[in-house]
């Protein structure tokens, strides 16, 4: 077919996506995932593989905090909004002035005690901006609305007790005047929930728990799961020993997507508590699975449990990228979900049917997903037993990929996954629930996966269900990915390199050494001067970087829940930091 026609056809998905994305002007980055479909794709095309080598630093900004910076900076109009890890300071930078001076700052002053119950560094994964308001989650269980113009507090919503181990680290999502928030603390026996707040006043509109009776999980007559294993009443109670669901985990600390046509909210629930699965016989619904819920009422439309009776800390909280895919010659509305358990799932987002589930890393904890029943076929050789050491479990607890979000380019039709390549040895131990203390029951030591490289960036073709190209990295790639219309993919390494690679081939076209390891989410925006900018927060931490951010001792391999064993060199490779870096063409 003629070149021009082909090019035009290829651009169609981008146009369709842009229309469906309901994003603000294409130069903004109003939410962490860029749009409700969670593509993390910027339509800006000024920076390309041809000129990326000339990218230079435009300005920097020190956040004043030196823990893990996992957030995405947001840009709406002329203002950039940044949130730091605890103590969760919010900065608004005026992009219209040289050097982007501070417009205002907001200090929520969360309780210091919250630092002790953050399992995986005192991170914050980002803000949300909507209708002139900035929405912030603080570590000590508050959601605060701030006036975007002047930094004044509008309302504050409190729910959850840090002394019972509950915290809040996720980036809220605002849809049609509803602020969607979820909690953290599955490692402390916290029962998970997703709550919708009214954006104007902060009143709670609905609350959907992840475990417990149907009326609390908001399962009613609308609930039509695709697979038989998800059907039944009060499964959130019946698939647990008596009372165990009350401390069962299933927290909602990851990403939320929204489909405006189906009016459905998509998100995943975290692992069940404790890690020692022998203490909780049963499927442990509704943990480690994906929910589709009606935005207005919170009622569940469907649920699919990716890892029933999870034994390996395989949360299902990773992002769900909403795309239209050709399946068997017909277009289908799907979500693409790269999971901790090592599979990239393509799921029909209207019904919850699994179209495909393909491993993207070495997986030996299971042998595949039965598409007829939806069951994950666990491998008996890796079954956990209290008091027994099981070796070479792949993927390790952080999974094939953890929270670090992927980006989808409608131009290349590839999903760019920043992830890790780790296996582990584990001994399950008896644990008792003591409020405010970890409820885990496992001793873990992680190690590099096959090949020895601890990290990888994979360009995954969801239609063909295979990788197009991969880049091996020495350290786990704990940053998010950014894809742009200039056919570039940006990501950062844990020793501070911020890289741009060609989206089609993976060839490195530019890199810059920032002051500290990068675990944040890069974004692209159009500045007031019309130029395209790329921004990322540098500051090592998160679970993978806790050995540096928390000054841990790697002589104990089980520190940082097993990461210490495989990150013994991190202290040599990077130090703590907290800096915003913004780049542009000269």
């Amino acid at each position, binding site marked *: 077919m003629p070149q021009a026609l082909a090019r035009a056809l290829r651009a169609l998905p981008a146009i369709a996506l842009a229309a469906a994305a309901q994003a603000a002007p294409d130069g903004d980055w109003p939410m962490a995932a860029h749009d409700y479909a969670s593509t993390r794709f910027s339509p800006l095309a000024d920076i390309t593989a041809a000129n990326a080598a000339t990218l230079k630093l435009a300005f920097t900004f020190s956040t004043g905090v030196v823990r893990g910076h996992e957030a995405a900076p947001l840009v709406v109009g002329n203002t950039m909004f940044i949130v730091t890890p605890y103590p969760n300071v919010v900065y608004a930078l005026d992009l219209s002035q040289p050097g982007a001076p501070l417009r205002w700052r907001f200090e929520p002053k969360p309780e210091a005690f919250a630092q002790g119950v953050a399992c995986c560094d005192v991170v914050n994964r980002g803000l949300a901006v909507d209708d002139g308001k900035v929405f912030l989650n603080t570590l000590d269980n508050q959601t605060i609305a701030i006036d975007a113009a002047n930094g004044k507090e509008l309302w504050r919503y409190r729910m959850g007790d840090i002394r019972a181990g509950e915290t809040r680290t996720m980036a809220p999502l605002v849809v049609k005047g509803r602020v969607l928030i979820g909690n953290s603390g599955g490692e402390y*026996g916290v029962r998970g929930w997703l709550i919708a707040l009214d954006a104007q006043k902060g009143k709670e509109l609905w609350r959907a728990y992840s475990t417990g009776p149907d009326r609390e999980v908001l399962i009613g007559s609308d609930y039509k799961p695709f697979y038989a294993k998800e059907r039944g009443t009060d499964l959130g*109670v*019946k*698939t*647990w*020993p*008596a*009372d165990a669901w009350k*401390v069962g985990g299933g927290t909602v600390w990851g990403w939320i997507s929204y489909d405006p046509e189906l009016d459905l909210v998509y998100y995943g629930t975290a692992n069940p508590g404790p890690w020692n699965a022998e*203490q*909780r*016989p*049963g499927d442990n619904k509704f943990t480690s699975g994906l929910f589709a819920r009606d935005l207005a009422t919170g009622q569940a439309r469907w649920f699919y449990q990716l890892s029933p009776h999870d034994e390996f800390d395989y949360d299902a909280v990773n992002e769900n990228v909403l795309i239209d895919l050709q399946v068997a010659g017909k277009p289908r509305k799907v979500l693409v979900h790269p999971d901790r358990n090592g599979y990239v799932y393509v799921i029909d987002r209207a019904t919850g049917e699994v179209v495909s589930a393909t491993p993207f890393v070495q997986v030996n904890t299971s042998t595949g997903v039965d598409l007829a029943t939806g069951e994950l076929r666990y491998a008996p050789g890796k079954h956990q*037993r*209290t*008091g*027994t050491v099981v070796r070479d479990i792949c993927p390790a607890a952080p999974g094939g990929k953890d929270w670090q979000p992927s980006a989808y380019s409608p131009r290349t039709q590839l999903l760019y996954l920043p992830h890790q390549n780790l296996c582990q040895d584990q001994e399950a131990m*008896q*644990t*008792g*629930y*003591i*409020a405010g203390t970890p409820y885990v029951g496992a001793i873990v030591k992680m190690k590099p996966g096959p090949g020895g490289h601890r990290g990888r960036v994979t360009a995954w073709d969801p239609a063909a269900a295979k990788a197009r190209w991969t880049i091996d990295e020495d350290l786990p790639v704990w940053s998010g990915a950014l894809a742009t219309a200039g056919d570039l993919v940006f990501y950062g390494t844990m020793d501070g390199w911020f890289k741009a690679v060609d989206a089609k081939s993976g060839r490195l076209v530019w890199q810059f050494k920032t002051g500290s390891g990068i675990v944040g989410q890069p974004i692209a925006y159009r500045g007031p001067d019309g130029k395209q900018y790329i921004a990322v927060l540098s500051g090592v931490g998160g679970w993978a970087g806790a050995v540096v951010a928390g000054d841990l001792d790697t002589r104990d391999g089980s520190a940082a829940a097993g990461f210490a064993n495989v990150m013994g060199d991190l202290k040599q490779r990077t130090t703590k930091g907290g800096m915003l870096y913004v780049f542009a063409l000269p």
Partner: protein
Amino acid sequence: MNGVHDVLSPAGPQAEALYQLWNVMFVACTVVFVLTIVALAIAVWRAPRASERAKPDLDLHPRKVATLRRSVVWGIAGSSVLLLGLLLASFVADRALSALPLANAVRIDLVGHQFWWEARYESHSPELTFSTANELHVPVGRPVLVRLRADDVIHSFWVPSLSGKKDLIPGRESTIALRADRAGTYRGQCAEFCGYQHAQMALVVVADPPADYERWQALQREPARAPETAQERRGLELVEQTSCAMCHAIHGTRARARRAPDLTHVASRGWLGAGAVENTPALRAEWIANAQKFKPGINMPPLDAAPDDLAAMAAYLGSLR
């Protein structure tokens, strides 16, 4: 602990098989013993005797005993037959032990701790499982499959009236099957030295008629009784907020730890501390205050608490039938 603790009173097929084997061995060994003693007596009686004046009869020495070879051959033959017979009896007993039909078995997950027994009753439906300690109830006439595991050191399960011994070894899992054919209370104890209080690590298996068992099981599945008096409420508050909840679980309350016996229905048990003290109100209060007095060396510490608080906790725990 009052219960039948007698290898010689079997109350079920496992113990019965062992009892039969014991009888065979006892009879065989007794017969052999008696014959040997009789032979010895005869030999002593009929041995030639000398007197001081008579000369020693040196002719005796080189003379062969005519029946020597015959005696030895008969002795070996007889012993071999008996030993083979015992081997056969042991084999038959083993077969009997493994032939217990297991249909509709009650499944119990028994974990040995220093110095108490944790019993988790399994079920096809996870929400019907429950945990108790030191006192097992089983239905008469139904097989019981006990999964044996140990938390710390090697223990051994031995309820002599119901079955033989089997070790609980840390890091390994084994099973033992038994059945009680007569209602009653059967005492057992740890049969492998496991530390300071090995001698006071008893357990009791109560065989209930099926209807009574169903009632007991239904009760155990229920959460703990809510406190009714002010003192009991104060007791619950203290149990949840001070030491007790660090190790014990009481279903329906905020106590959810697993290091020590489940107390959800503790007042329904006959004894505390794996047979150390009778579960009466007075002894219960003393036990809570200082369990070390009765059983020094166990993991339950003496409590730093005021007498009123101890009384409240004892009252609350006493209400957990």
